[in-house]
């Protein structure tokens, strides 16, 4: 598996602030990679380094086999970018902006561009100053999706989109992946990442705290159990790896660590299971755990 992005030990400071503090990120070619973190975790800073807009002070970053700072211009022919905060030229129409950015990248697929304008229901004749936030976002998305770039860098691309447009966006991203292209999707909308991404990297305070496929990450974390037993569910409190135990007559609810699941199930079975629902952790729980537990 070749890799589209390899970042290791990336450090970037702004004055006294350490925006990136040894960040690692590996994105394989052809995958949709979720890049998760709360506001200010360093997602945009990382993307800016990958675009050669910022120069890292430490660590290495390789993008499509090149150096993002030194080879910026040649690399940019092969990638498309959607900024987190889309600022348009107030006097240029959305259509002009899309065409300009595409041509500056190296070409415009007119048919694909028009199809996307229709799909996202954008009025391309309006001036930049007349668009709402969602419509500004659409302009940037269409400009990026209309390209045939190998790599899409999307920085919180759905901020301001309504649910229908968000669904259209997901379709488009899946099409990109099906065409064998790579997507780095920075987001804090976990439903979006869960729906789209093959693998995720979770960062916090400029450091990578978790990475892997969603499956792998789930193994590392807790499953929610909701069970009714024949006998009173005593004696579960001393079990290792059980959290948030609540006993309500014969009903018992708790979260259990991946490695303790086996043991917990055996105990429950011994008590005479009447009903059992187990739910894998959502990404949200995973995420909250990382940010709530941390010092």
């Amino acid at each position: 598996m070749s890799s589209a992005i390899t970042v290791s030990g990336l450090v970037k400071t702004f004055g006294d602030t350490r925006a990136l503090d040894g960040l690692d990120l590996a994105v394989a070619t052809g995958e949709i990679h979720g890049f998760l973190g709360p506001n200010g975790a360093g997602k945009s800073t990382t993307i800016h380094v990958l675009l050669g807009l910022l120069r890292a002070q430490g660590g290495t970053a390789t993008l499509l086999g090149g150096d993002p700072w030194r080879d910026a211009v040649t690399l940019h022919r092969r990638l498309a970018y959607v900024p987190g905060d889309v600022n348009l030229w107030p006097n240029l129409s959305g259509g002009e902006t899309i065409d300009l950015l595409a041509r500056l990248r190296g070409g415009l697929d007119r048919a694909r561009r028009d199809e996307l304008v229709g799909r996202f229901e954008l009025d391309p004749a309006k001036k930049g100053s007349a668009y709402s936030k969602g419509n500004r976002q659409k302009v940037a998305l269409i400009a990026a999706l209309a390209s045939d770039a190998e790599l899409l860098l999307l920085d919180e691309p759905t901020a301001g989109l309504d649910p229908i447009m968000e669904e259209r966006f997901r379709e488009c991203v899946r099409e990109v992946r099906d065409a064998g292209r790579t997507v780095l999707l920075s987001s804090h909308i976990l439903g979006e990442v869960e729906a789209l991404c093959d693998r995720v990297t979770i960062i916090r305070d400029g450091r990578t705290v978790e990475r892997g496929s969603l499956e792998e990450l789930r193994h590392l974390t807790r499953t929610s159990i909701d069970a009714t037993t024949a006998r009173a569910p005593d004696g579960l409190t001393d079990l290792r790896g059980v959290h948030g135990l609540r006993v309500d007559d014969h009903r018992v609810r708790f979260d259990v660590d991946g490695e303790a699941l086996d043991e917990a199930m055996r105990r429950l079975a011994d008590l005479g299971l009447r009903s059992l629902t187990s739910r894998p952790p959502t990404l949200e729980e995973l995420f909250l755990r990382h940010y709530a537990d941390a010092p």
Partner: protein
Amino acid sequence: MTALTATGTLLRLNLRRDRVLIVLSAIAFVAWTILVAQVLQSLYPTAAERAQFSHVVAESPAVRAIRGDTRGLETTGQLVAFQVGVLFSTFIAVVTVLLVGRHARGDEESGRTELLLASVAGRDAPLTAGLLSALLLNVLIGVGTAAGLVVLGLPIAGAAAMGAAYAGVGLTFAGVAAVAAQLAGTARGANTLAIGAIIAAYLLRAAGDAGNGTLSWLSPIGWSSRLRAFDHERWWVLGLFALTTVGLVLAAYALLARRDLGAGMLPQRLGRPQAGARFGSPLALALRLERAVTVAWITGVSMLAIVYGLVTSSVADFVQNPQVARIFTQAGADTVVDSYFATVMLVLGLLAGGFAIQATLRPRTEELAGRAEPVLATATSRLRWAGAFWLIALAGVAALLVVSGLVVGIGALISTGDAGDLVRLAGAALAQAPAVAVLAGLAALVHGLAPRAAPFVWIAFAGCVFLGFFGELLDVPAWLRDLSPYTHVPQVPAERVEVPPLLGLSAVAALLFAAAAGTLRRRDMVSD
């Protein structure tokens, strides 16, 4: 009034953000006025010397067009009012307009107003807080000027009138800016509209003062000299300022109540749904973004240039006056006219410098507004991106100088019937280009080094304007005057064209741009 809720909080916020601007400009205008007064006091200490000076200038429509009414130049106070009154009230109007525009419209565009209005601030609060900032600035300038002149020993009434004239012009244009902010669709549009009004007021006054004076009564800048500071002050003129300001401010509030946040009263037109075939390069983008503002600058400067040209015959007549001719004993009439042209060329060069700095700093505006990012994320290098703006800026400077030089020539042709000056004056104006390019290069370098340091370029520019207008008058040391690139431009057409200084200035400009390219490549991109 709930519409005004939180005005106080906003005002404190404004003052926090603008304190440097407000304090620096107040100090600059007050200090400048006092300095000029001091120098005039020492240059013309006696009534006889002042009478001789006023004799020379009073008859010249050219002088009146540039500096204002020349009636009553017998006391130091009157000389001060004449030398700086019109000029400074125009500059004060510009600073005030930018201050009001920023709060009444600029914040709205950047989304800050939305944030504030959605919290507890009332609808009228941002405009009110902006106007109060302007009031504070102008009161500081007015009171400071009056106090300073009194300390120098000038009559209290005249000093008060002088300060009141400054504040009156400033506040009237605060009202203009408030209305413009409601009319225009964008913050930039609002500033353009308000600055346009200042230019129009200056030109009306120039035309009025060069002629019989009637037109000056239509211009707030004209009122500042009609107040007659130090010459039997006509206090009722202050009523004109007050009425106009109140009327404009009320109109602004009425318009504000009728428009949507983020929209203007003037309708926004639709654009093209697709880009034109050639709209696909950094140069095309720079041209598109700079086109309107460049044309506006050329038009504005040309309007000034035609006035300067039209008074040429009066300059020639004025030299024929036997008393004046005695002063210029060894200089013929042609030489005097050419000296006049040389001064006009300097004014055009300084104006072109203002344009050049604004245009060269455009990539900085783009960068801070986050609009450079999507362009630099394409296959566009930083140098191609910024270089495109530099090229358009320098081409704009050349066009501005040639056109306005030609227009001075056309004015002169209408005035004297002599067509010989047309090409000569266009060329003379172009001789300013290397000096202007140095300022542009400085702006580019500051952007390359530290985009947040851009105000430094404007301070350097203010220094050039100061040295240009007052360097000789105030006997500024030569080494200090040599810092201004304009000092090195040969005073064509009064002097012969000297090639070496022009080449030298061009080389300095080229070095500055090269350094700018180098620094821009190395640093991090930033945005607000």
